[in-house]
């Protein structure tokens, strides 16, 4: 075993329960993760103080490192919500999903992924994806069937759908970030602020740089006249309102827009 006894001693039933439940849920929002952590302490070790989440997770990750898995933190692209998922770092290709899907289904996903990465908006229309059905490897798939497969992807949290268009689920971005960088090296987009993978975002119409919606919100937070950080031209888009954990904690009443974005959550 590559995990030495020293590191193993970090793993207690608190951590094990946490990992079990995190795995069960697939992907979780930060506040749910915190609640989960507290629950695990309550169940297994009431006396111990609840460790700060970041440290708690870093400790777990030090054990998981040799197994090539990780509790990874990400941010939802549409509303800046912090999320966590247990991801596998070893397999970098779509074969991650291989055990769940047939060859032609995996290929459909690859085609959809390519369209999404190439697109300007980060969304691929259902029509465009379905038109590629004839090019799929493996057993022939009809469009009707493909529609259902796309829904399967949505249910498994690999894709999300909005108004008949598909984009990557935040969980998929967490898991496949590396694979997407490697596979679509030339067409992949990055955010100029946080420098990570960008699927959906806003772009400067003059110089073409891109930013995630939450990154835009943070960057232009207190400016009355938003300007592109690269070419200083006026930023042509509406500055979005995104999730702010501090605001959420302060307000006792739930905000209407928060509720609506929540109901959009998967």
């Amino acid at each position, binding site marked *: 075993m590559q995990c030495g006894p020293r590191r193993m001693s970090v793993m207690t039933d608190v951590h094990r329960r946490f990992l079990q439940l995190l795995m069960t849920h697939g992907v979780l929002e930060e506040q749910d993760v915190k609640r989960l952590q507290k*629950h695990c302490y309550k169940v297994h070790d009431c006396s111990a103080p609840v460790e700060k989440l970041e440290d708690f997770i870093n400790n777990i990750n030090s054990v998981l490192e040799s197994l090539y898995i990780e509790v990874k933190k990400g941010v939802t692209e549409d509303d800046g919500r912090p999320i966590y998922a247990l991801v596998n770092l070893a397999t970098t290709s779509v074969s991650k999903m291989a055990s769940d899907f047939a060859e032609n289904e995996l290929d459909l996903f690859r085609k959809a992924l390519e369209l999404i990465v190439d697109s300007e908006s980060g969304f691929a229309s259902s029509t465009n994806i379905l038109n590629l059905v004839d090019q799929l490897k493996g057993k022939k798939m009809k469009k009707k069937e493909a529609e259902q497969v796309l829904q399967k992807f949505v249910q498994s949290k690999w894709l999300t759908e909005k108004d008949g268009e598909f984009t990557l689920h935040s969980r998929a971005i967490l898991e496949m970030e590396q694979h997407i960088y490697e596979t679509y090296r030339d067409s992949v987009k990055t955010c100029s602020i946080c420098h990570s993978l960008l699927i959906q975002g806003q772009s400067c119409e003059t110089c073409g740089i891109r930013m995630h919606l939450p990154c835009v919100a943070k960057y232009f937070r207190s400016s009355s006249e938003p300007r592109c950080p690269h070419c200083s031209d006026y930023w042509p888009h509406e500055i979005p309102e995104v999730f702010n954990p501090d605001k959420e904690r302060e307000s006792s009443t739930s905000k209407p827009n928060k509720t609506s974005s929540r109901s959009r959550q998967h």
Partner: protein
Amino acid sequence: MSEQNKALGDPSFAAETSPASPGVPMEAPLPAAPLADAPSHHVSTMDAGQPLQQPQALSDEGDAKALQQPAEEDQAVCTVQAQPGLAPPAPAQLVQKAHELMWYVLVKDQKKMVIWFPDMVRDVIGSYKKWCRSILRRTSLILTRVFGLHLRLINLHTMEFSLVKALQQEELDRVALNNRMPMTGLLMMILSLIYVKGRGARESAVWNVLRILGLQPWKKHPTFGEVRRLITEGFVQQKYLKYQRVPHVEPPEYEFFWGSRARHEITKMQIMEFLARVFKKDPQAWPSRYREALEEATALREAELTAHSARSSISED
């Protein structure tokens, strides 16, 4: 799930009316004990048909020869193929395979899919099939140490595995994430009904109870969705329930039994505790059932002790 004790009036449920239990339609836990083996030796359960427990070193230099011994006819899960001259792989490769298998099993379990040994071989182990025993052993070990889960062979004949929690069963209590697992309550209700009846529960009886809780077969429920589908398909697919046609009955009727996974994950004592909570009674209000639960608990403890002593006599890695 709120406990509406006053309403649960199905007579065979609320109090014990059935006579001293006729054979309960589940296999007694004891015969299953050799399969439901203690933690880190699940691979040894596959030797159920084989003569000796061979001390397993995790590096396979010496193992390759031992594994070439012919396996029992149909029992051994890892049948060895005659491949003379196939050099054993580097230990690092076996370790990697074990990690891949660990993830594979976790994902399958997450999606509530069956963990089937032939699938494991086809999808992960591949050409390392000859060393599957050591791979599986390492995977089991990691799962126990890191996740607190046991990879258990629950059915030798169908070669199905299941991931079982090694930690205290917490699903019966309120779950951290705002009761987002009400399914457990629903399942426990049905399992309890079956247990109290002492035999299969007819679908009609199950619905009598569920209707009182506001669940109807053909109506979509805000929390459970399509309840009938959940209990006749969902729970069945996850092996918590068995849904079978009652023989020789026209028009056709169906009944529910405990599934193999329920038998492994849920103890009779937990059912008694559930009943006690729901009906606000002492578990001994169902005397013969309570006795059975006690017997099972004793048997499980003994099995655990036996396995524990067996474990200590086999060399560990």
